[in-house]
């Protein structure tokens, strides 16, 4: 089995609780529940409101509303946005691909770049070059990604005109899309890399003191081959955990970078929804992001069990 029953159960419970939270929040927040559920853009006569109340089931008891809520989730009814005049789920699906197009390459590149450079940094002597790399990654680590976005946007697009200044349109060719995505992906992957770099470096520093390293040398291994044949796999275990834990943080970072680059993804969607207090869209985004985060953790667990044989056994 790939995942222990306990782990799987925890995922389900997490999903259940976070979704329930999403049900509770608009109903307990100060303000008119109708507004909280439909958004500030919704203005209607008293009669329509009464009709809608019935349609939304707000006249029923909370427990019935709760049941309806779950029924809606399973049938992908996430409500209607009066700001965009569209079903929430279709807006999100339309926007999501741009967020994913930014996020996944960044996570992948960041993982490869960060673990590789971090491993070498922990393994090699701490000379000036090594220290300088660490300082540089630490500086990226300490920056809000959107701020890096602003600087890059200013330098590369505004000053030098190398990359487009404003968002892109879906009619764009592949090359066009790539040109628009280049800077955001560069920023997000460097940011992700900086986090992986620091963890991998620390992890290698600890692993290289272990006895199996001495034994590997006793068998005749030499130089970097010790790092890559023995230490790397052990040291990457904490990084895999981190990538999963970090997924939500990176996702949030990507949302902000999107806003800076006016990309047409979920980040800008959330921003617009926030400005117009379009609550259904905010809630819908929250649900979808939750599912993405849980899926990422699930995936990381499986990856972990492939790398660490001890986990598979326990499962």
């Amino acid at each position: 089995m790939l995942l222990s029953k306990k782990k799987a159960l925890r995922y389900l419970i997490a999903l259940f609780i976070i979704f329930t939270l999403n049900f509770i929040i608009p109903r307990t927040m100060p303000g008119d529940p109708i507004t909280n559920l439909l958004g500030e853009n919704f203005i209607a006569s008293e009669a329509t409101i009464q009709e809608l109340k019935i349609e939304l089931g707000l006249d029923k008891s909370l427990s019935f509303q709760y049941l309806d809520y779950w029924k809606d989730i399973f049938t992908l009814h996430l409500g209607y946005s009066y700001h965009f005049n569209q079903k929430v789920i279709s807006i999100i699906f339309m926007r999501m691909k741009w967020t994913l197009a930014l996020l996944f390459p960044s996570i992948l590149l960041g993982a490869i770049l960060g673990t590789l450079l971090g491993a070498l940094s922990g393994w090699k002597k701490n000379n000036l070059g090594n220290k300088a790399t660490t300082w540089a990654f630490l500086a990226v680590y300490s920056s809000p990604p959107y701020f890096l976005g602003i600087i890059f946007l200013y330098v590369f697009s505004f000053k030098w005109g190398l990359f487009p200044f404003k968002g892109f349109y879906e009619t764009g060719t592949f090359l066009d899309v790539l040109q628009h995505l280049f800077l955001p992906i560069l920023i997000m992957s460097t940011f992700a890399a900086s986090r992986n770099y620091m963890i991998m470096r620390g992890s290698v520093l600890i692993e290289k003191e272990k006895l199996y390293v001495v034994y590997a040398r006793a068998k005749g291994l030499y130089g970097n081959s010790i790092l890559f044949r023995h230490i790397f796999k052990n040291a990457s275990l904490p990084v895999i955990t981190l990538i999963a834990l970090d997924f939500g943080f990176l996702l949030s970072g990507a949302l902000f970078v999107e806003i800076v680059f006016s990309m047409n993804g979920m980040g800008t969607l959330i921003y617009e929804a926030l400005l117009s207090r379009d609550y259904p869209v905010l809630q819908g985004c929250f649900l979808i992001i939750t599912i993405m985060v849980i899926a990422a953790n699930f995936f990381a667990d499986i990856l972990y069990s492939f790398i660490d044989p001890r986990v598979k056994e326990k499962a």
Partner: protein
Amino acid sequence: MDLLVIENLKVTFQTPPEQVRAVDGVTLELKQAETLALVGETGCGKSTIALSILRLLPENADVRGKIIYRNNDLLLLPEKELAQLRGKDISLVMQNPALALNPVYSIGHQMTEPLIVHRRLKKPKAIQTAKNLLEKLHFKGPSNAIRAYPFEMSGGMKQRVLIGISVVLSPKIIIADEPTKGLDDRLREMVLKELRLVREMNRSSMIFISHDLNAAREISDRIAVMYAGEILESAATQEFFKEPLHPYSQALLESLPERGFKPIPGVSPSMIQPPRGCKFHPRCPDKKEMCSKQRPDFKRTKNRDVKCVLYS
């Protein structure tokens, strides 16, 4: 002919503010196809000698002296050339198999590594070689063992795997560091049998490190007794057990269960500030006045070397 010669080896560990003198002027020879037992209580510096030979000590170790193998001083050889000798000419069975094996790789992976690194064998070929070897060592179910991970094995199994790995490249010298430690009688016998087997496979020489005198007696041709970083006596094994000369050797034999379990009085000496003169004098039943003043030299008596004023 001497295959390996250790001359006046001194190892000091820098652990600020202190210095641990783990090995304090050790001279040893190992002959072709000979098994030398290195015995002494825990902490006297046995492992340090083993690791110095392959230059595997941590960076805080300061190593002096000479270790001559095939006209080369191993202490001066460039790291890369030394790496080619490690595992291939001189192999090591490490003291702590549970920690020496890498937890995330299968036994097969770790066993075939020397073949892949030194001989550049292809993986399937290497696996086959490893399997054959395990079979020769009477492993039950070699294919399963190859596929297993360290955490799935008992301590004894891991020890035997390490012995197996030590011999995959038919080395000239096998250094076995406490291979019988912590094993029950049955496993101990099995490991000793296995060591004899691997020794015979290539007529290798062996340095057998142990604090188990009986195991040393069973397996070795010659024995060297260590105390606080020094060798106090070295002799042919049979003669040694017939008549130990050094007072420490005598006390050591007296402390064996079958000779009445008499413990050696006093405590092990500090390795940071060892006693002046002969290091054993504070615990010695035969000590003379000069023992606390002057460190004795090796004297060849009755065809063996002893470091004690009684024989000078």
